[in-house]
Each structure stands twice: as structure tokens, then as C-alpha cells.
């Protein structure tokens, strides 16, 4: 059993597990941090961005100035943004039988895999994962296709040229695998290959393996997976949370007794406490608005935004923000808000109870009803008529490279009254801001990552006791920026096996058993040979020594044995003691039986009748196996 590691990003995993002759892909994460190397795509023509100077080599050679632009000392690729795909060469992806998706953030590379590798299998995911995943993909495609950019840069990717570029471009990995965004057609085709599953549903794969999704507590419909045969169990833990937010709590008990636990998707900000961050988010937001400034919150259209809106719902009135408009701008804003209300079965207990009343589980329904929260597909259209300042805008994309957020960065960046608050942990906020420098607006970093931290992980591992832990190499050492923090790594016994991109790991399995089924009734015995003649011939046949006699166990109590002998007509039995046991003598028959604790030896003349009689008497005292 082997694990092929196709992604180097610990929270956007993509692994392939070969398990009992099935090939199972675990998640399909798309590393979008590559887009940070590109210039933003402005919705409205931006003179600042289009007038950035081209970059030239130290020796003045400017042959790259069409592709690379410089902004405040950083160099960016001026092209359609590209994403870093999972490894496609390590294993023939057309042999993948199934893909298991754990949450909507971990399926963004799906169209690349299902549409371009000859994949013919099935994808399994929960309904909320598919619906919200579709929204995320739809938004992404929309953001990029809305601003068509003719230019596609490729010169800089040449290895010899890349070497000459400044950091971080110089250090960007796997640039040859970077690809442009997929189309909506590819998204639809990829999603049509998904089969919906529910938590704790047992799915049989070819009768050899059973896979089961379990609630992971991180997002609507997010799951961990159990992959097991009758005697082997792999737990795949990805993006899990023990905090009480909106999703159903994590199912830990079912992870017990795993032979191997693959652990991915831990918090990206292990030092930040999500609750504290939410508090800081609210107070910074209030402060800015009270001073007449606008607040920009770059975010995904689903997930943490539901929790933020819920906090604001409770906070708005007490903070005196009742008259401040909140805008949520995304091509899928409406769908996201509507979908969040219909997944009662996937929500935490409190929210379920509300649905039973029946009331919408999320209070943003009320925010919308009272007109405090308004949503728009984009800044064009109705929004421009309704737009009032100061206000709070939630919009994407958190990388600040495309989407309506680019417009607000350009619009509000010059005033120190305004604030941008980063809540999504996927992108370094400094890198995200780089192409907007110099910037006057305030920047607050409140990353909210509810996934497991290292303290919770070590508690979890103690609880579920896997035999072996497998995780990305990043988790087996402290983060590079905090190399003294030995507490910010996985600590378990035996030490976790680590993997990195493009590595193949042999999983330590000791298979001891295989399942068979037996019938309750014994099979009919072969009919005994009828005629005496035949029987004789049978006894003359050379016996097949492959037919094994049972093993024996137990010991023979001498006194009882002698009594039995006498009862069966042996009259001259004599017993002698020896160092290790006894010798029973049958003088007339010249037979000697040595009895010891663990052995019996019958020594006799060639009298088969007598020998068989003695044998059967001895066997009466022993157990057969």
C-alpha cells in the first residue's frame, strides 16, 4: 500500500492512495498562491497599473519588459494569472478509480484532473461540498473571464531566465506546471462526475474497500474519510475543527483503531486564536466606520463569512452601526446566502433546532430582510446606484489579484481613513498588498482559521490512537519563521512519517487476516465407500501426506490412564517413575508407553490393532486442534 503525494501545500492536499488494488485520490487541492506573482486584473481601466514600468535585468537588458512589471521594488508577471496544479506525472491519473473530496476548498483542481488526464472514475463528495464548491469555482471563472486579458506570458518561465529574476519569482516552484483557469464548461463536466454521499454512508468500492465520509466540523458538509478493508483501516483527516462554529461537530470516535492516519489541513496560523481574531475584526471595523472610513473585507463567498455576519448581527446595534450599509459583492453572493439556509442536516445542533421551529438557521436572513446587508453580483448595475459611504464591503478574491476587491483597493487605497481587514488565512497579506504599494489605507490582519492547531492535534492523536501518522513535512518541524517554537509541530510516537510533493511513501501495514465466510451447517461428508473390496484397495493406496492430522495438546494423568487401560482389558499394567514422567508397561504385549508432560511415546510390536487401540485411548485424554 502506497501513498503518492501530488501537492506540496499542506492545506490544499492532493494524494493518491493505492489500497488493496484500488487507486483512490484524496482531495484535489489547487495551490492559488502562485497568483500572487501576477499583476491584479482591474475591473475598470487602471492608469496606475497600466503605467507600471517594465522590468529589466541588472545589465539593462529589457527583453522581458513586456512580461514583467515593477511596482515598489517588487516584480510581477503581467499576464492572465495562473495556478499551480498538483503533480500529474508521478502516477498515471487515468488509473485513478475514485476521488474523495473532503471540503469545498479542497476540490478546486478537480476540472484539471477529471477533464485532462483520461480520468474515468467517480468523485464522491457531500451535497454542501458540491453546491458550495460549484459556487467557488463559478466565482473564480467569472472573476477571470470578466476581464479578458490578451497577454499570456511564458518567456520568464524559461529555466535559464527564471534564474536571473528577483525573489520571489526566482524561487517559484514548478512554474512549468502552472496553468490558466478552467472554463465553466469544464467545471460543469467535472461536477457531473460527482456522486453525492452522506456522513457515515458506507460506500463499497469493487467489493474490496469501503470508504466512509465523517463530519470534520470545519465547513458545511466538510468530511474526513475512512478507507478500510475488513482488517486494514486508513483514516484521512483533512481540514477539521473542534471549535463550535456553524457546521456539525467533528466525528472523532470513528477515527479510532486506524492503522494509518493521514493528517493534512491543520490551521495555517497556529499562533492566532480564532475567537480573539473575530473580536479584533469587529472592533477595528467599528473604529474605522465611526471615523467615517470604509472597511474592505477580502473574502471567499462562503465559509467564515457566515460566522462574521453572525457576529456582526449581534454586534451592530450595540456598537451603534445600525445605519451603516454592509455590502456583499460576488457573482454568487445571493446563491451562497440562500444555500447556507437549506443545509439544516449539516449544521451544528443549535442551528438545527432553529430550523425545527421553523426559522432560518443563519441570522443573515434577518440582516437581508431589514436591508442592513445587501448583496450584488458585481459593482456594475444596481450596486452603483445604491452605493453609500461609509460602508463595509465583503468581496473577493482574497488574493487581491482579481474580482471586485481590486476595484475597491484602487478606490480606497489612497485614504488613511479606510481599512482593509484580512480574515482569510490562505494568502500572505503583505504579498497580497505588494502591487498596491504605496498604500495609505490601514491594513489589519485578523486571520481566522478554525482548523486544528497542534495542541488539538496532539489531544486528538491521544484520543484515537492510530498506529502510524503520515503528514506533510511542514508539520514535522516548527514553522521557518518561528524555528524556536518546538510546540508548533506534530509530536507523536512513533514519529510521524512525512511526505513532500512528488514523493511516494510505502505505508507500514502488517496484514494478518483476510475475510472469508463460512456456512453455519457443516458441508455434507463424502459418502463412505460401500463395498469391502473398494475399502481394502483404499487402505493400500499410498496415503496423501498433505492431509494433516490435528495437533494435540494437554497432558495425560497417569493414574486415570492406567485405570482406563485396565477397564479396556489390559491386566498386567505396570508403572515406573522416571525423571520426567512415567513409563507404563504392558508386559504381555511387550509394549511400553512413555508419558511425559508434553509428549507420549508408544513403543510396540507391529500389531496394528493393538497400536490403534492404545492410540485411541491416549487421544481421549488430549485436545485436538
Amino acid at each position, binding site marked *: 500500500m502506497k501513498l503518492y503525494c501530488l501537492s506540496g501545500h499542506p492545506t490544499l492536499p492532493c494524494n493518491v492512495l493505492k489500497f488493496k488494488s484500488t487507486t483512490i485520490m484524496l482531495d484535489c487541492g489547487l495551490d492559488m498562491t502562485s497568483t500572487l506573482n501576477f499583476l491584479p486584473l482591474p475591473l475598470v481601466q487602471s492608469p496606475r497599473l497600466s503605467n507600471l514600468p517594465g522590468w529589466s535585468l541588472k545589465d539593462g537588458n529589457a527583453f522581458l519588459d513586456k512580461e514583467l512589471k515593477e511596482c515598489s521594488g517588487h516584480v510581477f508577471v503581467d499576464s492572465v494569472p495562473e495556478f499551480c496544479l498538483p503533480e500529474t506525472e508521478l502516477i498515471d491519473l487515468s488509473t485513478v478509480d475514485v476521488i474523495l473530496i473532503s471540503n469545498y476548498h479542497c476540490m478546486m483542481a478537480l476540472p484539471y484532473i477529471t477533464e485532462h488526464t483520461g480520468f474515468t472514475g467517480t468523485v464522491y463528495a457531500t451535497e454542501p461540498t458540491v453546491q458550495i464548491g460549484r459556487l467557488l469555482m463559478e466565482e473564480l471563472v467569472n472573476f477571470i473571464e470578466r476581464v479578458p486579458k490578451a497577454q499570456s506570458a511564458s518567456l520568464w518561465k524559461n529555466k535559464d531566465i527564471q534564474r536571473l529574476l528577483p525573489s520571489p519569482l526566482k524561487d517559484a516552484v514548478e512554474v512549468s506546471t502552472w496553468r490558466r483557469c478552467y472554463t465553466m464548461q469544464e467545471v460543469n463536466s467535472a461536477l457531473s462526475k460527482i456522486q453525492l454521499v*452522506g*456522513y*457515515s*454512508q458506507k460506500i463499497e468500492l469493487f467489493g474490496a474497500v469501503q470508504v466512509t465520509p465523517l463530519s470534520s466540523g470545519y465547513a458545511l458538509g466538510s468530511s474526513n474519510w475512512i478507507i478500510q478493508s*475488513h*482488517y486494514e483501516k486508513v483514516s484521512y483527516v483533512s481540514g477539521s475543527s473542534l471549535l463550535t462554529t456553524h457546521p456539525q461537530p467533528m466525528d472523532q470516535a470513528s477515527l479510532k483503531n486506524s492503522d494509518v492516519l493521514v493528517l493534512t489541513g491543520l490551521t495555517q496560523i497556529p499562533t492566532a486564536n480564532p475567537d480573539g481574531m473575530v473580536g479584533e475584526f469587529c472592533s477595528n471595523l467599528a473604529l474605522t466606520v465611526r471615523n467615517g472610513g470604509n472597511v474592505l473585507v477580502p473574502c471567499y463567498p462562503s465559509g467564515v463569512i457566515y460566522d462574521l455576519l453572525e457576529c456582526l448581527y449581534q454586534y451592530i446595534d450595540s456598537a451603534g452601526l445600525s445605519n451603516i450599509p454592509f455590502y456583499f459583492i460576488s457573482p454568487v453572493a445571493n*446563491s451562497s446566502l*440562500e*444555500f447556507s439556509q*437549506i*443545509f*439544516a*442536516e449539516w449544521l451544528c445542533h443549535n442551528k*438545527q433546532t432553529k*430550523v*425545527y421551529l*421553523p426559522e*432560518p*438557521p443563519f441570522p443573515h436572513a434577518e440582516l437581508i430582510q431589514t436591508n442592513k446587508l445587501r448583496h450584488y453580483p458585481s459593482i456594475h448595475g444596481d450596486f452603483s446606484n445604491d452605493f453609500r459611504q461609509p460602508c463595509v464591503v465583503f468581496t473577493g478574491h482574497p488574493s487581491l489579484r482579481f474580482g471586485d476587491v481590486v476595484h475597491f483597493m484602487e478606490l480606497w487605497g489612497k485614504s488613511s481613513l479606510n481599512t482593509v481587514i484580512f480574515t482569510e488565512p490562505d494568502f500572505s497579506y503583505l504579498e497580497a498588498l505588494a502591487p498596491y504599494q504605496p498604500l495609505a489605507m490601514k491594513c489589519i490582519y485578523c486571520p481566522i482559521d478554525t482548523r486544528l492547531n497542534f495542541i488539538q492535534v496532539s489531544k486528538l492523536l491521544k484520543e484515537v490512537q492510530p498506529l502510524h501518522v503520515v503528514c506533510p513535512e511542514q508539520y514535522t518541524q516548527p514553522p521557518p519563521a518561528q524555528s524556536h517554537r518546538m510546540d508548533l509541530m506534530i509530536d507523536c510516537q512513533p514519529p510521524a512519517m512525512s511526505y513532500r510533493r512528488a514523493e511516494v511513501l510505502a505505508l507500514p501495514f502488517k*496484514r494478518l*487476516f*483476510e*475475510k*472469508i*465466510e*463460512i*456456512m*453455519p*451447517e457443516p*458441508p455434507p461428508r463424502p459418502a463412505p465407500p460401500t463395498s469391502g473390496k473398494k475399502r481394502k484397495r483404499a487402505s493400500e493406496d*499410498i*496415503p*496423501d*501426506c*498433505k*492431509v*494433516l*492430522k490435528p*495437533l*494435540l*495438546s*494437554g*497432558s*495425560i494423568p497417569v493414574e486415570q490412564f492406567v485405570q482406563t487401560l485396565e477397564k479396556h482389558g489390559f491386566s498386567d499394567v505396570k508403572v515406573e517413575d522416571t525423571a520426567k514422567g512415567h513409563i507404563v508397561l504392558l508386559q504381555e504385549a511387550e509394549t511400553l508407553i512413555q508419558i511425559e508432560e*508434553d*509428549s*507420549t*511415546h*508408544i*513403543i*510396540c*510390536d*507391529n500389531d*496394528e490393532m493393538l*497400536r490403534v487401540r492404545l*492410540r485411541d485411548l491416549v*487421544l481421549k485424554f*488430549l*485436545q485436538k*486442534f
Partner: protein
Amino acid sequence: MPEIRVTPLGAGQDVGRSCILVSIGGKNVMLDCGMHMGFNDDRRFPDFSYITRNGRLTDFLDCVIISHFHLDHCGALPYFSEMVGYDGPIYMTHPTQAICPILLEDYRKIAVDKKGEANFFTSQMIKDCMKKVVAVHLHQTVQVDDELEIKAYYAGHVLGAAMFQIKVGSESVVYTGDYNMTPDRHLGAAWIDKCRPNLLITESTYATTIRDSKRCRERDFLKKVHETVERGGKVLIPVFALGRAQELCILLETFWERVNLKAPIYFSTGLTEKANHYYKLFITWTNQKIRKTFVQRNMFEFKHIKAFDRAFADNPGPMVVFATPGMLHAGQSLQIFRKWAGNEKNMVIMPGYCVQGTVGHKILSGQRKLEMEGRQVLEVKMQVEYMSFSAHADAKGIMQLVGQAEPESVLLVHGEAKKMEFLKQKIEQEFRVNCYMPANGETVTLPTSPSIPVGISLGLLKREMAQGLLPNAKKPRLLHGTLIMKDSVSSFQLVSSEQALKELGLAEHQLRFTCRVHLHDSRKEQETAARVYSHLKSVLKDHCVQHLPDGSVTVESILIQAAAHSEDPGTKVLLVSWTYQDEELGSYLTSLLKKGLPQAPS
């Protein structure tokens, strides 16, 4: 002999009071816990004393499963759990869990407040009862205990209705509850995989009916409503608050919009608005089309349908009113019916099945003079129409489901005996499986032969494979191993005898035989041994025969030594020594050697 036993306490050759006891693999499960709409005495609830007369029900039942929220499937639940006493788990889907307590409360109010019944369950009992409910997802495998598992499948019929598979080891039963095999305007069709249960317990409300196309029925319905409204008449449609109500509302709403009608449509009681809200929040349980478009247009937000007020019933002019309950046995629908019954311009449309004893059943069977409370006689002049919109599978649908699940046998409940008889024959003919239709209190026993899962040690399996023969179903082969039962009854291990001894911490007892075989041979012992060797070598071609340097001969692990006879120099003694495991070969060798050796070529 293992067996599955099924006893209906209700719904045996009857509709109403669904309650079926199933014993499978040593587990007892109760399927549904309904009330009977046709009775007002003790007979309205199942007779739980059948389970036990004086013990707690909890000790005799492993779990209770509720298929959907209709009262004939869950109406007795608070009585059963709080008044008779049951504390075990009660399983149902999320929408059922949400809606069930509301309908129970409604039922309680009618019984206690309107009819003044004493000794009925209270609101608090409904709450306490619902605390024992465990909600299940579709297709989730719920482990009730280590051995009993249940799984829900989509059943259509009403919001949240489910079929349940009950499984212990390799034995299983599927209970359909009520289901619908054709998608309608708001729900999808029931579906089950080829799970091959030992027994399928299916409803058979429409055992003999094969319904015409749904489109025709809908057109017919709309035509009748339209005509009545055009001539200024009033249309009463008795419905239950959840289920057909939403279906017909969607139908009328779209028709009103298309034809641009102005006559008002009302929906009685506050419950209905609430009901529509449930449909909005549980939209994932509705059909594909509604789910797909709900963001743009939620089908359960009606523009033309308004809330009804009691005073509206006396308004002049045409109107359409949906009123509860559906069988005209009590409540608002009955009140309106009494007001409108005398006018031949009006119409009542019964869109579903009516249980015997209800006013609905009476007018459908042609009765036009009804005796009401206080010896009043009500003459029915209004038109009475019956249009089957109940979301039950018809005969074709039932056959379809049997074909889907491929059960070993079928058991019919929730239908009338005569109609069941017909369907029973049809199922037995078409699928060649046994079909049962027990009456209430009658037990059906099905013998089963479950297979026993066993873990075979890879060592033993490999030893077997090493013999080079591939398994052949036609040629059984003996495999020697030891079956160990460890920890729990359900975990058997099949291991080699050596491993079994080791795991049990037992020492092997060696049983060895040494036989003296006398041979006439005056040559030296070594030569005798050599002759023995060459003889055996020639006879035992398939065995490993060796002549060891110390002069002894071995055949496999059997040792043969030649010794001189202490008294007779012309005789040699062969000592043949083997262990019990080589019994056959050892015995064979002694008899072979006893016959003497062939003359050596001199």
C-alpha cells in the same frame, strides 16, 4: 435455526395505525407507531401489551423507526414512549423530526380540547418523547449497537419520508413506509439500490390500482376547479397541512398565473404557512427541479394563495379553499364542508385516500345523507369528486420497487386484504418469491441461513495457496485450521493449529509411535537399511525418501532404523517411528514393511 419474525400490531391487512414488529438476528425493532383515524377508542393505538404485559418496553425493543410524519405512522408515539414507557432510541429523518411534534400537538389539541378526551398524552409528553429521537441522514449507516445497523432511503410520498433497511450481519429487512415511485411537482421518486434483503415489507395502499398518467389527472382537476369557479361555486379541498397541500398549491398557483384567474385561493390555519416554511428550509428533500431553481424562485412562496379566515366561508362569490384535515373527520375542513354541502353549485374534491369511518369515506362511497352529532342529518347536494393525488405507489410502482430491491420474500402491509390478495399473487407469479400478508397480531416466520464472517490468517491462506491449486467451486477441498472465538461472539478467526496453540498459550503434546517390524534378513543392519531404502524409494515415488549417513532411512518425517535382534541373528528389527500427525503414512509403512522386502538382486 436462525429466522426473521414479523408481527404487525397495526396496518396488517388494514390502512391506519401502522406498527410492525420485526425480530432479526436476535434484535427486536418496531417499525412505525401510528394511530388509526377510523377509531376513537382503544383501537386507535396499537396494542403494546403484545410486546410485554408488565415489563418495560425498553427491555424488549432495540429501537423504534418512524418512516414519516403522517399520524397513522407516528400518532401513537408519545403514548407509547411516555405513557406505556419506552426509553430506547427512536430513529427518523430530520424533516420528520421537525414536523412530527407539530402534527402530534395538533392531534392532541383536537382530541383533548375539542373532543374533551381525558387520559390523553400531554404537550410535555410530546416534548419528552421527541428528546428520545435520533435524526438520521439519507444513506447514512446508523449503528444502533455493535450488530444492528439501519439505513434510510428516499421514499418521496411526503417531505422527509424514508424507507429503512434494517441489517444484522448478513440478514436484512427493508421497510418501505409509504412511498411514491413517480416524481411529482414537488417531491422526487423513491429509490433503493439492489440491496437484496431477506424480506421487503411494503405498503400496498393501491395494490390493485394502476393510475392513468399524472398529467391527465392534473388536467382533470384543474378543469373541475375552473368550471366550478366560473359558475360562481366554491371549491373545498380537504388536505393534510403537509404533503398533498403543497403539491396542489403549486399546481393551482401555476394555473392561476397562466390563465390569469381572479377568484381567491385560501389556505386554512396558521399551520400551513409554517408548513411552507419547512418546505423552504428542507428544500434538499424536494425534487431536482425545485432544488435547482430555488435561488431564483422558491416554489413555496405562493403569490395567489392567501391565509384563510373563518369569516371568509360565508363570503359570496367563488373561491377555492384548502382546509385541514384531509379526511373530513374533524376540524376546519369539516366545518366548511357543513356550510357548503347544501349548495349544488359547490364542489368538494377529495385528493387522497379516506379511512373507513370518516366523513370523507362516507361521501366517497356515495352516501348523501350524513348523520352528524346531535342526530342532525346533513344532506349533501354539492358535487363530490375523488381524485387520487395521494403520493402512494400504485401496483406498477410496487412491482417496480420489488424489482429494484430484489428481495428473497415480500410482506404486504398498509392495504386492504382483498386488494393485497391480488397483488400477492402477482408478486409470487412474476418474481417467484414468497409473499405474505399477515393480519394484525399474526406472526410470519422466515427461516434464514446467514453466513458467518471469519478472519482467516494470511499464513494459513498462503499455506493453502502454496499447494498450487486455485480454488474451484466444483471441487471442495479440505482445509485444516482452528476456529478461535475471541473478545466478542462476532469475531471468529480461522488460524493454523500451531497458531491456535500459541494464541491460547497451550503447549503441543507430541504423540509418537515406534513399531518394531521383524524382518528375516541375516545381512548386516546397514545392508538391511539400504534394502529398505531402495524398496521404499521405488514404491513411494511421490515422497521424499532419504538414506541418512548414520544408516537410518527417512520417509518425509518418518524415521526407520534397522537393529539386530537380540536373540535371533537371522532376524533384523526395523524400528519405524512417527508422530501422530503422520499417522496415515506411518501406518502404511509398517504394513508395507511387514510384507517383507523384495529379494535383492544378488
